[in-house]
């Protein structure tokens, strides 16, 4: 991949700036919560500003080149380099991570969950941001792995300390499961390094550029096994069936912003890994694996939808819907066509916006009613009309209504599934992909079913008599004491109030983006179409 070397400090700045904020927060007294929040907001905002500056400086005519590229030797003995760069494929997720972090910080200014301690809470979110941004700009496998793992620890603590009733189990499961996958992934990385190092004079390297050149020449059996290792690592993250069981627990038990970040960005680390690393480095293995990935994606779409229909908890339902949506993303990837991968990347952004919003809404419902049990919720449209309509809007976006962003992640994926890459057709997999296409189309029906059924049960109809007398007592969330009364549903009194200022501030950008990207998708497609076409054109149309 060609590179553009200018302003090559920009990406490092954008990635590590949150650490500056963490440093400052570390020295603030624990009691001064307001100051902590302000520092956190300013840091997140500054990071986002750097991101927007990056957006403006980005050369949109050269999206297939790596921009803001820089490369230094890092760990000489293992030939790991500090290489970072930004191209059209990385850009959307890089900016999205900064945006989501900023919005989460704004949202949390009002809503730090039990047991409080904003100092630790915001520090962890900022560290998480470093990890997320770094993963998308890394151009070296070891660097990628480091950033990939950095996100695990803050998330573990976010879930384990600020989470729901079953948080210990959920956070541990999340950590161990993902780490297990990453362990296999690391083995695969090292194996790839050794195999490509071979007898080369330079002694090999962990840089992406090296693997792009030498990866395709790896022998067939080795390539298959290495791909398998990477597959497990990324598949656990996506999450693909059957490696998905950590997701519902993690999402349900996590605090609101934890769920939002997890859904919006962390899941995409897996799919990004497929698009950036697994498939371009080992194309022959990718061809062999594509049908299996396609089948698992289709199963995930239906299985996730069925799981949704069986749920009694709102957040858990949204979690299963993530499995279904990521199924569409993987479906697009498995077709090995530019059309499909474009759909996948668009779907990654769209899912981040939409499901992030859904989790925000769920969090706000929890904040007011202290429950997310579907059977106990009803008539939200009546008690909080704005929140209800936003929930309906998000439901429509999530089921893929054209005119909203979700459609462009699903529809081109279905198109690409029917017409997979020429090499796949030549290998006799076309009928399989046709069946997968129909199954995926069935998935859209299921999506409408579970989302609208949820909407009908919790938003339509009359409010639950249990909550009828709690309406409109105050405009803000009640102040939280530091005592860890955990997440007892009946601890605080139920206060029903419609969407407040902080929530509007943190949600408006997402809502606007969902509509804008839905109506004019070219805004996104033109960013990553060229690099994707270049990367995936090798598989034939």
């Amino acid at each position: 991949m060609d590179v553009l070397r200018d302003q090559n400090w920009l990406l490092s700045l954008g990635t590590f700036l949150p650490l500056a904020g963490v440093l400052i927060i570390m020295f603030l007294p624990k009691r001064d919560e307001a100051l902590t929040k302000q520092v956190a907001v300013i840091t997140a905002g500054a990071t986002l500003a750097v991101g927007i500056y990056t957006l403006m400086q980005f050369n949109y005519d050269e999206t297939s080149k790596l921009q803001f590229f820089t490369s230094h030797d890092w760990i000489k003995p293992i030939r790991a380099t500090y290489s970072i760069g930004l191209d059209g494929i990385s850009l959307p997720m890089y900016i999205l991570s900064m945006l989501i972090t900023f919005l989460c910080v704004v949202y949390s200014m009002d809503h730090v969950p039990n047991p409080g301690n904003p100092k630790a809470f915001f520090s962890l979110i900022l560290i998480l941001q470093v990890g997320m941004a770094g993963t998308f700009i890394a151009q070296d496998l070891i660097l990628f792995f480091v950033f990939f793992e950095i996100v695990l620890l803050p998330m573990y603590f976010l879930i384990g300390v600020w989470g729901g009733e079953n948080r210990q189990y959920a956070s541990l499961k999340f950590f161990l499961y993902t780490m297990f996958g990453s362990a296999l992934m690391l083995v695969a990385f090292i194996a790839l390094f050794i195999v490509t190092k071979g007898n080369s004079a330079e002694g090999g390297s962990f840089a992406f550029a090296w693997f792009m050149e030498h990866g395709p020449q790896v022998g067939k059996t080795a390539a298959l096994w290495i791909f398998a290792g990477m597959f497990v690592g990324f598949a656990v993250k996506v999450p693909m069936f059957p490696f998905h069981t950590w997701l519902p627990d993690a999402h349900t038990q996590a605090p609101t912003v934890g769920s939002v970040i997890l859904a919006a960005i962390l899941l995409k680390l897996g799919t990004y890994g497929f698009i950036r690393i697994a498939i371009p480095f080992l194309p022959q293995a990718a061809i062999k694996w594509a049908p299996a990935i396609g089948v698992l994606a289709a199963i995930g779409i239906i299985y996730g939808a069925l799981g949704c229909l069986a749920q009694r908890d709102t957040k858990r339902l949204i979690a299963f819907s993530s499995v279904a949506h990521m199924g569409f993303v993987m479906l697009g990837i498995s077709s090995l066509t530019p059309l499909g991968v474009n759909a996948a990347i668009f779907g990654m952004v769209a899912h981040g916006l939409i499901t992030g919003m859904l989790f925000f809404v769920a969090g706000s419902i929890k904040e007011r009613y202290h429950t997310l049990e579907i059977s106990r919720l009803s008539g939200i449209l009546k008690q909080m009309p704005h929140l209800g309509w936003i929930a309906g809007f998000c439901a429509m976006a999530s089921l893929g209504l054209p005119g909203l962003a979700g459609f462009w992640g699903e529809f081109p994926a279905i198109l690409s599934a029917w017409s997979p890459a020429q090499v796949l057709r030549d290998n006799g997999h076309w009928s399989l992909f046709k069946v997968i296409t129909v199954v995926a189309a069935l998935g859209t029906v299921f999506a409408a079913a579970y989302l609208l059924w949820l909407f009908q049960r919790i938003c339509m109809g009359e409010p639950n008599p249990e909550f009828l007398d709690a309406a409109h007592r105050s405009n803000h969330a009640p102040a939280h004491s530091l005592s860890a009364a955990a997440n007892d549903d009946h601890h605080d009194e139920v206060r029903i109030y419609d969407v407040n200022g902080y929530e509007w501030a943190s949600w408006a950008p997402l809502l606007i983006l969902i509509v804008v990207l839905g109506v004019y998708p070219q805004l996104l497609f033109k960013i990553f179409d060229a690099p994707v076409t270049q990367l995936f054109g090798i598989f034939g149309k």
Partner: protein
Amino acid sequence: MLGFPLIRYAEEPAAAAHAAGWFLDHAWLIALIPAIGFAIILFFGKKLPFKGAEVGIASMVASLVLSAGAVYQWIDLGHDAHPVIKTWTWWQSGGMQFTLGQHIDGLALMALILVSFISTLVQIYSVEYVRDDRRFTHFFASLTLFSAGMLTMVLAENMVQLILGWEIMGLCSFMLIGHWWEEKANSNAALKAFWTVRVGDMGLLVGTAVLFGMFHTFSIDKINNTVAEGGGFSKSMLMTAAIALFIACIGKSGQFPLHTWLPDAMAGPTPVSSLLHSSTMVVAGVFLVARIYPVFHTGLDINVAGQQFNLIAVIGGITVLIAAVLAFVQNDIKKVLAYSTVSQLGYMMMGLGVGAWTAAVFHIFTHAFFKCCLFLCAGSVSHTGSHHSFDMKADMGGLRKKMPVTFITWMLSTAALCGVPFFSGFFSKDEIIDSAHANHYTVFWVVGLIGAFLTTAYMTRATYLTFFGQARGAAAHFVHGDDHADADHHGAADSHATDDAHGAHDVKHSRPLPFAPHDSGWLITVPLIILAALAVVSGYLNAPAFHIEKFHHWVTPHLINEMVPEAPVFKWVNALPSIALVALGFIVSLAISKAVFGSEPSPLKGLTKRNSLLGAGHRFVANKYYLDDLYEKVIVRSIAHPIAQGAYWINQRVIDATVNSVGIGGRKSAGWVYRNVDQRMVDGVVNGSGIAASEAGESLRASQSGKVNQYGALLFGAAAVGALVLVIVNS
């Protein structure tokens, strides 16, 4: 000539630019203005003086004016009219650019002006009808968005844009059917509508994917031309695409077996029923078939010699019959009209299935007017006649004198619907029947004729129940003329309305109602009059009987003309069977209705509650006066009524129950899969590995007793064993 159309148009921009006028070039505004109107109503509607209604009506009028201008310019183009296609880049992928734009030809223009016209009238009607509604502004916002969606779909240049419009309509349908979502029945109906259509939409997605895979384009123009040229593509693949796309049409246009949502959709306010679920949205499926007709015509072997049946005609034909039969046993006036709509949509599909493209599209045109009028009449009746009730048996009757305008417009529209000669329906529906015969689709000719008979019959029944006979329930309020001047209007028709009869029906309304039945305000009646007039007159745009073929010239594309057989030459003798059946249907139904629902005592009253065999036996010994009609009634009734009831039973208990049980079964199997497979098996493996690790650790713990002596013992024991091994190995 039919090479690459886009290149052709690019080559002759000068010629086309002169010929195509401003309205044609900017026809995309027709869809954009209501969209902007929707946004305005959504954000500012509540603060406006008319709460958003003015914005809605204004945007629809603007669309109407633009459509009229475009139609005028199109007609001006005459015989050399080519589609006016404009595109902008919308998205790109894999290096290919995909567009958003307009494809304006006769068909699109017909639909554009039809939709904007009917939308305008319905919005005006709604100002009165939903006055004081709890969500007045939202209602108008949804109506406007719906129009924007349908207009987008109609002028869509490519399949993706068509899908956009299609789904926006579905969204608005959901919002409008469930407008009063506080009541569970309404939200259930809204969901049922959305889901049933969504099931059909699977076909839309897959079909578009297949077409894209075949032709690498979404452009409707390119697809039509390439298919029409023939060759270079796989026939079976085209058939797959056609079947898949038709499944979507089955869902959207309420064809068998996905018709069950339409009658339930009547839960929405009447303007919604009249706009979406009769004249505009539900014809979207028919429109889609008409729009990419070459795909269906070639893919499903329509008009191929020797093929008596094809998928579209069969489904259409079945729909015509089953819906018409079901219309007989409805007590709710809107449900009668709903089944009637389903039946008429079946006619349109059947027409397309037998190759009668112009007739079917013309039927879309005329049907919109009279069906919309019928629904608005029903709304008018409920608004000021039966006090918001739609139950014909319980709350209507004898309203023709009290609501003259509504009554006359209803009668005119009914005549059009039944296909009475010289009304619009005669020229459109009978054209379909005629074409079926001319194109050698004899079975469907018969189906069409039977449908004509049934249509007249059930409409007569509904008319009788609503406007004739004795006033019942809410319609019977104020018969005694307590202090109301209306009492004077009750002439001979109500002479039977004695105290007893009134009291017998007054069970539900034990208190007097605030007003007596009267005709509605001008906001309601003026649209009725306009639509009724059109129901009479619109047929003359394409009346083969009088050698007028304007509609055909203006709307039917050259491509279609070359594909389908010529329209049959009109002969009165060919039309005779259907006219006869219409007359027969009217007479038979009127007689039965009078007997069963009239105020005179009749042994037929309540016969469904008693054994029909007993009733027949009873009649045999009855008064001679009844012998002739009795004979007719025994045969006709004992065949028609049980069968109709049976058909409805199958519809509700078998088909709809299957739909419901799929939903319930899906939920239950989802629960089972979740509990057993996911939680026990898959998650069990994960948890199991953790447990295995800790159990292993637990069992090894026994060796750590904490006792130094034991440690020593183990130490020396191990050393001894080691020494032994060493000795043995080294000796």
